[in-house]
């Protein structure tokens, strides 16, 4: 079987259920692939791993992928299982923020490590400076949890619909206690969790073929996961996930974000524009995605 190493962006959890299911259910094997899934962590940059030859294909956010491409690691998006973003900003209803207009002069929790671009793009759109002061917003680099909200260190915090949102709920917030700003609904979403490979590798027909089979099996896995969240959560637990109930709920939420695996050029354009506006990347990317793989894989 052909060996493929997949580097995830984060620890084993429902967010990556499709890949775990594909492996567990033997979908990769059916395609003649021997896939090794490497978990990520809070300071694993998948872009670094693939640049160092530690992986064949990685899961990452498009903003980070394009930033890496700008720095000389020629990453190419070959598939986009996540059609929508799961990112949102939540604020307690009894706090000072009810609408976008209330942001001024308040503290907002944001994830960094390459996850900050959608937020800055949004603020850019609202014309809010992010250096603090009465006319701008103060940015807090948020840790993994929802404590800043509980502790009132921030007026709003970033969460994923499928993960931290539920932690807030677990901590005692009720859905009706929260004001939610969903990036997708506001049209501010930048593409998350795509599959990326090194451009030069694609010139090799054998590698391209391998990727076609990989994407095909992965999307099959995603489809299965969306249809069978319980079994998918099982596979996640098998791979080292924590807290079965939480994973089940996560798979259920993730299911709402998964698409057919094809990249939407409109969102791609929005992503590149946002990055250019913020000078995260210096030039318009070219050839940063290809539909060739998905075209072949998902007829």
């Amino acid at each position, binding site marked *: 079987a052909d060996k493929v190493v997949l580097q995830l962006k984060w620890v084993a959890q429902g967010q990556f259920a499709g890949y775990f299911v594909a492996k567990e259910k033997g979908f990769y094997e059916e395609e003649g692939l021997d896939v090794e899934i490497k978990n990520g962590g*809070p*300071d694993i*940059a998948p*872009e*670094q791993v693939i*640049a*160092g030859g530690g992986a064949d294909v990685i899961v990452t956010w498009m903003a*980070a992928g394009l*930033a*890496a491409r*700008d*720095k*000389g*690691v020629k990453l190419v998006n070959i598939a986009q299982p996540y059609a929508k973003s799961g990112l949102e900003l939540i604020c307690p209803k009894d706090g000072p923020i009810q609408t976008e207009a209330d942001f001024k002069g308040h503290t907002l*929790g944001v994830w*960094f*490590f*390459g*996850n*900050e671009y959608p937020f800055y793009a949004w603020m850019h759109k609202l014309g809010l400076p*992010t250096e603090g002061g009465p006319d701008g917003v*103060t*940015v*807090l*680099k*948020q*840790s*993994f*949890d929802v*404590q*800043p909200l509980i*502790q009132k*260190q921030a007026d709003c915090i970033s969460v994923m619909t499928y993960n931290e949102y539920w932690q807030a709920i677990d901590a005692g917030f009720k859905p009706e206690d929260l004001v939610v700003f969903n990036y997708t609904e506001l049209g501010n979403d930048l593409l998350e969790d795509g599959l990326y490979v090194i451009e030069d590798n694609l010139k090799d027909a054998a590698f391209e073929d391998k990727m076609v089979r990989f994407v095909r099996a992965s999307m099959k896995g995603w489809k299965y996961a969306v249809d069978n969240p319980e079994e998918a959560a099982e596979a996640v637990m098998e791979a080292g996930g924590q807290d079965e109930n939480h994973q089940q709920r996560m798979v259920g939420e993730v299911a709402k974000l998964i698409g057919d695996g094809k990249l939407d050029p409109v969102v791609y354009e929005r992503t590149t524009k946002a990055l250019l506006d913020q000078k*995260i990347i210096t030039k318009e990317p070219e050839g940063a995605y290809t539909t060739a793989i998905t075209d072949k894989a998902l007829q």
Partner: protein
Amino acid sequence: MRASLPWQIALVLLAAAAGGVLQVAAAGDGGPGNIWPALGLIALAAAGAWSMAGKPAAQAILLFIGAHGAAWLLLNGVSGHEGRAGPSFYLALVGAWLLAWRCVSVLSMLKPASLGGRRLLGLIIPLIFGAWVLILWEAIVRGAGIPFLLLPPPSAIAERIGVSTAVLAADFRQTVLKAVLAGYIIGCASGFIAAIAADRFVFLRRGLLPIGNMAAALPIIGVAPIMVMWFGFDWPSKAAVVVIMTFFPMLVNTVVGLSASGHMERDLMRTYASGYWPTLVKLRLPAAMPFIFNALKINSTLALIGAIVAEFFGTPVVGMGFRISTEVGRMNIDMVWAEIAVAALAGTLFYGVVALVERAVTFWHPSIRGG
């Protein structure tokens, strides 16, 4: 006097010869330039230094010029040919490096009469060593074409430091001047006080030390988020992490140091019916100083690590740790290394200051009196 051939020089000549042969063999495949002049310079410097045995100063100067001239030629030659360096390039590099090594050995054997001369030498030797860490890094990264994302060359880092001084200065202020200093002082002081308390009261000694040991392992990653909860996300929480990290080394070393005074000296104090505190201040603390400075030195580096790592959790958007983790995400690896360079510089200076104070305070200890 015909001196024996130092092994570094022998290897240099060997490397230069082998490099020449390989360069002839590989001629014309478009690798890095300047190999021939570099090889020539290296061989010349090696032969020259060998013939000048007995005149160490002149030898050192020649070796210095040879090594760094060749390095400069090689680095110039490789630009534009990244990732295409062949064995002859590396052999020339090794040759130049061995020259520098020989240069440092010759310099270490010098014993300048004047104090100023010794000081200068004490500065030059580590600088040459450090320069070669950077030269080898630059040459290998560029010669082998290592992706920028994995390891940027020092030149790129230096360039980034030049461009981003304002940001680096702000981060330095936030992390070092606020979190590290406050945490270091409080941490060392509380470790010290805990040690004294444990020494003074048998009850505390039996109870506090095991519990103090527990604090030793409180992993920063576990503690940092908790400190953020307790002390907010600005620098006080980072200082708290530093306090926890520096507490234990100070506790352990002070406790050991307090038992380091001699028996006869302690008996002497007993004959004066000297109370606990006078004995502590006049005998046991001075005798413990070598140990206490041990802790102060170790802590000077631990404090920096602690503060930076603590910033990987909740922080305002400034600080060295914040910058490092954020810029990794943005693939600005040169910025990451620029911060690391600043951290290294600050830490080394910090350590150096502590070591100087140590020399002044424990001048009487054999480790300092003896050289």
